[in-house]
């Protein structure tokens, strides 16, 4: 109870400061749009073949935009050594992790709700599959990516070059999620006849989410130690 309460408090603080500055969110959205523009150079949008790479593009956007925010969420606590203040505050490290996770997850969801329709619009993509399943998969995939990402951001935050270290730590660890969600997204967007396979992938990603969320909650005590 106390854990959730302190986590929500921390998430509220993060989101409120983000609401006031709009620094990270705006950067993430502009960055996502730029990635889409770059992809339009790489893959001709008028070509029908491009439809096949859309699921991949969606996840590239989420991963790259997400990494910007993940790193910021921890680095921003270092400027005035507020991380120490959080650690001496009467809350558990798991609460800090949970709070950061909620804030990051909310932000990545906002980025996705803006960037993905924008992508579909610009690439003139006609959805052949089911939207609820698509949203479910995006949700599950983002959950896994952000949960392990927040944890590793806290770990990499100890380094002076955390923004360089974080992708090196995160991409290999998050590779099962990325494999699973790109497969599931591809099926859901184009070929609904293989829905059972997409659901199996979603289950795999969900189990990954659960495993790593629990491990992170356990191990964060060791990461956030003074």
């Amino acid at each position, binding site marked *: 109870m106390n854990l959730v309460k302190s986590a929500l408090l921390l998430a509220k603080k993060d989101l409120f400061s983000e609401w006031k500055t709009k620094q990270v969110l705006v950067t993430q959205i502009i960055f996502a749009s730029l990635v889409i523009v770059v992809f339009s150079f790489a893959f001709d949008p008028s070509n029908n073949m491009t439809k096949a790479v859309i699921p991949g593009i969606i996840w590239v956007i989420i991963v790259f935009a997400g990494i910007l925010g993940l790193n910021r969420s921890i680095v921003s606590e*270092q400027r005035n050594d507020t991380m120490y203040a959080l650690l001496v505050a009467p809350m558990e490290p798991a609460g800090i992790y949970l709070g950061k996770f909620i804030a990051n997850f909310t932000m990545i969801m906002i980025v996705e709700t803006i960037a993905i329709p924008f992508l579909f619009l610009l690439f003139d993509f006609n959805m052949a599959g089911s939207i609820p399943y698509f949203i479910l998969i995006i949700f599950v995939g983002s959950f896994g990516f952000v949960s392990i990402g927040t944890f590793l951001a806290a770990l990499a935050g100890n380094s002076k070059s955390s923004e360089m270290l974080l992708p*090196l730590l995160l991409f*290999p*660890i998050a590779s099962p999620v990325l494999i699973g969600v790109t497969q599931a997204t591809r099926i859901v967007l184009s070929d609904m006849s293989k829905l059972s396979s997409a659901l199996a992938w979603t289950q795999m990603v969900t189990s990954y989410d659960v495993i790593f969320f629990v491990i992170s909650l356990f*191990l964060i005590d060791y990461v956030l130690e003074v």
Partner: protein
Amino acid sequence: MSMNLEQEKPLLPDSPLSKSKSAYLPKVLLGSTIITMLTSIYFIFLYAEEEKTMGAAQKIFYFHVSSAWVAFFAFFITCLFSILFLVKRQRIYDTYAYVSAEIGVVFTIIVLTTGPIWAKSAWNTWWVWEPRLITTLILFFLYIAYIMIRQMDGVWDKKARLASVFGIIGFVDVPIVFFAIRWWQTKLHPVVFGEGSDQSGGGIAPSMLAALLISILAFTILYAYLLNKGVTLENLKIKVEQYKEKLRMDIEN
């Protein structure tokens, strides 16, 4: 959270430096490494029959599989000692974890170089996106990331703590990566290669199996020897650091 509060703790006189153990173990390990290595070379090149389709190129299989085994085993040891370090907080466990990861990198590189050489002659391609290959590649990246954490600035116990956490997470991740990729690729590559040398994924000639087992044994003993030597070296480095620190304090006072 790098802060100037963090200073190297005054760790002398009671810090438990590992006593220089009797030099018995490394000698035994070295001796058995040499003996098993020579035996395995005899078995590989003279005893084991030549593979029908791949010919002599198949001999790389023995080194390849043994190195892969050592690479995965080393990562397991890293994870084990990471857990021990987080529980007991003694530097020696951390040293073991670190040295094991370093050896793991070396053997992963061996796997990733011998693999394509063999693949080029067996499948006529350097690289196939196949579960075991990708898992090994990701394992390699995990090791690199682990070593990158070790290269961070700061005091040793912070680095050891963070690296231990990553060692555990990484080890949990590897099987999931393997299953995810296997699931992803099953339709594309039914059974590209099993343990078998005849590519059917099934059988292996008894003489080949004997050679394989002996070379795995040889590589495991080599790993043990390298681990022992590496830990001794690392302990000496720590000792030198501590003497330097002591000297600095003596000069200052």
